[in-house]
């Protein structure tokens, strides 16, 4: 009895010591401390890719976890998902990337923030993953570059934006989707006559950024995609008369905008839309994550009306995917994970488990095939140019300056001149602070 206990204890100590040494060699001291008691977790740490995810809405969370599970089941490396609230994720991202022992991969989107990190050498070059992604469009490829010839991002899905409405409600009210701006105004007038707030908005309660969809669309419709990108990259001024001009059509529709629009979060604005209290909402398909499954079948959308036929049609097509830390100790496993998420099977699996309103980035992958999704894909395919979204084309640092300016415009449209000059001042500080 005593000998057995003594033996097993010695045995245990030796094992623990070995495991501790192994862990020290392969990763950090901290990992060794945490795992020296048994050798199970260490083996996992050698193979498991940590996926730091900000997909915290219930359906998206299920979908990414299913994806990680399928990746593990296929043999080889495994992945563990660590879901973090998106606000925390965003504020912690610089700390994650600069820490000595960062998570391996992150959910994110291409844009100036990413190329900024790439310039500082914080991101893993995934050029060899892209060699397996020959069928991806050139647009996706250039979007995933850092601007200096390296691929640092692997796209998984993208989605579209438009005016979403309930088919049953439009039928009940006897209205049809407009195709021109004047038809759009007539539609608003008709709905208002029926006692409905024509245009819903969810630019309150922490989701002020949704108002930027209006700014983006008006700017790409009137000034074009290139002007928009330049402006958001700091090569233009927000007090430019050309920028001021886009607020004229916006002013026309303010009387038709839900007066509670700056008080409701977009989840609540979705509810109000589904209840038929508002007529339509300009939003990306992400809002469907907050909608019940049965309501999704009743949803339809129309394109943001054309304001100037001479401007090439651009649409917002925000792309989501992954990037990896340059300091990851699991480079091979990370690249295996990236190659997997770039495949049609992986993207189809993700879409099946999510709300199904996103499009796969791989052109060979099948989307959910609903009429809504096919229509969205067709709109993006026909667009001459694609933009991402305000914070993606600029930065998350610039986004709050837009929130301040646009909410103030919605509430006090007569102060436009001072709004725009204040916006320019705030934006200049952000661009200066980043350089």
């Amino acid at each position, binding site marked *: 009895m005593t000998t057995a206990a003594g033996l097993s204890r010695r045995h245990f100590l030796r094992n623990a010591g070995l495991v501790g040494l192994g862990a020290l060699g392969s990763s950090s001291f901290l990992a060794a401390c945490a795992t020296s008691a048994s050798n199970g977790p260490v083996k996992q740490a050698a193979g498991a890719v940590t996926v730091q995810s900000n997909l915290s809405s219930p359906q998206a969370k299920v979908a990414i976890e299913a994806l990680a599970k399928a990746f593990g089941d296929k043999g080889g490396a495994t992945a563990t998902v660590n879901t973090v609230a998106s606000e925390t994720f965003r*504020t912690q991202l*610089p*700390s994650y*990337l*600069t820490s000595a022992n960062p998570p391996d991969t992150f959910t994110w989107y291409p844009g100036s923030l990413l190329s*900024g*990190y790439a310039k*500082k050498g*914080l991101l893993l070059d995934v050029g060899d993953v892209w060699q397996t992604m020959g069928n991806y469009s050139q647009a996706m490829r250039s979007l995933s570059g850092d601007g200096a010839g390296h691929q640092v991002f692997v796209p998984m899905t993208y989605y579209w934006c438009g005016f979403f409405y309930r088919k049953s409600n439009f039928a009940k009210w006897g209205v049809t989707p407009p195709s021109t701006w004047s038809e759009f105004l007539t539609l608003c007038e008709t709905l208002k006559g029926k006692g409905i707030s024509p245009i819903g908005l969810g630019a*309150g*309660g*922490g989701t*002020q950024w949704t108002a930027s969809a209006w700014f983006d669309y008006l700017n790409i419709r009137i000034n074009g995609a290139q002007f928009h990108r330049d402006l958001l990259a700091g090569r233009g001024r927000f007090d430019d008369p050309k920028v001021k001009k886009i607020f004229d059509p916006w002013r026309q529709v303010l009387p038709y905008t839900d*007066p*509670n629009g*700056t*008080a*409701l979060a977009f989840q*609540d604005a979705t509810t109000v839309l589904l209840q038929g209290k508002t007529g339509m909402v300009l939003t990306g398909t992400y809002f469907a994550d907050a909608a019940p499954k049965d309501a999704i079948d009743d949803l339809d959308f129309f394109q943001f009306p054309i304001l100037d036929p001479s401007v090439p049609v651009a649409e917002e097509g925000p792309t989501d995917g992954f990037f990896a830390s340059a300091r990851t100790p699991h480079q091979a496993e990370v690249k295996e994970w990236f190659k997997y998420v770039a495949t049609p099977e992986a993207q189809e699996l993700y879409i099946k488990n999510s709300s199904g309103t996103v499009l796969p980035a791989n052109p060979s992958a099948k989307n959910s095939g609903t009429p809504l999704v096919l229509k969205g894909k067709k709109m993006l395919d026909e667009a001459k140019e694609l933009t991402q979204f305000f914070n993606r084309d600029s930065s*998350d*640092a610039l*986004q*709050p300056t837009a*929130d*301040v*300016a646009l*909410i*103030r415009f919605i*509430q006090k449209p007569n102060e436009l001149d001072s709004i725009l000059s*204040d916006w320019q001042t*705030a934006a200049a*500080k*952000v661009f200066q*602070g*980043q350089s």
Partner: protein
Amino acid sequence: MAVLAAPAASVKRRRRAVRRVPPTLLLFVLVPLAVEGFWVFWPALQGFYLSLTKWDGVSAPTFVGLDNYAEMLSDDIFGTAALDTVIWIVLFGGLSAAGGLGLAMLLNRERKGVGFYRAALFTPVVFSLVATALIWQAIYQPDGVFNNVLGAIGLDSWKHSWLADPDTALYAVLVPALWRQLGYVMVLYLAGLKGIDPVLYEAAKLDGATAWQQFRHVTWPQLRSVNSVVLSVIIIDSLRSFDVVWSMTKGGPYHSSELLSTYMYSTAFQSLRLGYASALAVVIFVLAFGVIVTYLVRAFREDQ
């Protein structure tokens, strides 16, 4: 001989003991000092250094001297945030001190069921402020409880998007913060009131003092030590009021409910201008430290 020598030796030993601090004791002083130094003083000093730099949190900080402080002078948002912070200290501090003292006086006398009221008023302190903020956010919704109550009592014209209107947002956020702080200050004052010797009141009554005179000349002077605690608590709590504002309005709409603390946070973690944010943090620190030290110095001088 031996008898005579013993006390002399013990005196000598005692003297040596006084001069030489035992190593254990040294350890007990130095280890916490080192921990405190590493986790508190060092970061604080670093924060001060960062306030003299331009830093995005990723690249190395570049030294810019007092530029950040100079920028504050011409920064309108800083002006708004400073003004809002003053309003906040006056209203949040003043109302919670006055209300807390009033409630404590009211609930100090032992009556039937007084324990229930004390507990009820203290309950909000137990909740996390973020949870409190979420509940109040729902109350303030356009079709929330508050507007529904207004509608029910015929005040439809008062209905309002309380958190979305720049004229009301700051005050709408103040209410839940106050709701919580009242109970806390009340408990502090209750403890102070319990410590007053009843004989003093008896003597005052014998001398024919009115209720107000009793308060003015017995209760208030006796509460002096509690007052300094309450003042410190109030100043520190007002300046660090962040969670409730951030979770309800994020300082918006368009900076109308911006406090120095929320402005510091958004500058640091949204605009990624950590140098300027550190300068804001230094200003907050100086304000808190200045007010409290001034008060404490005065209080000690009165004591002497």
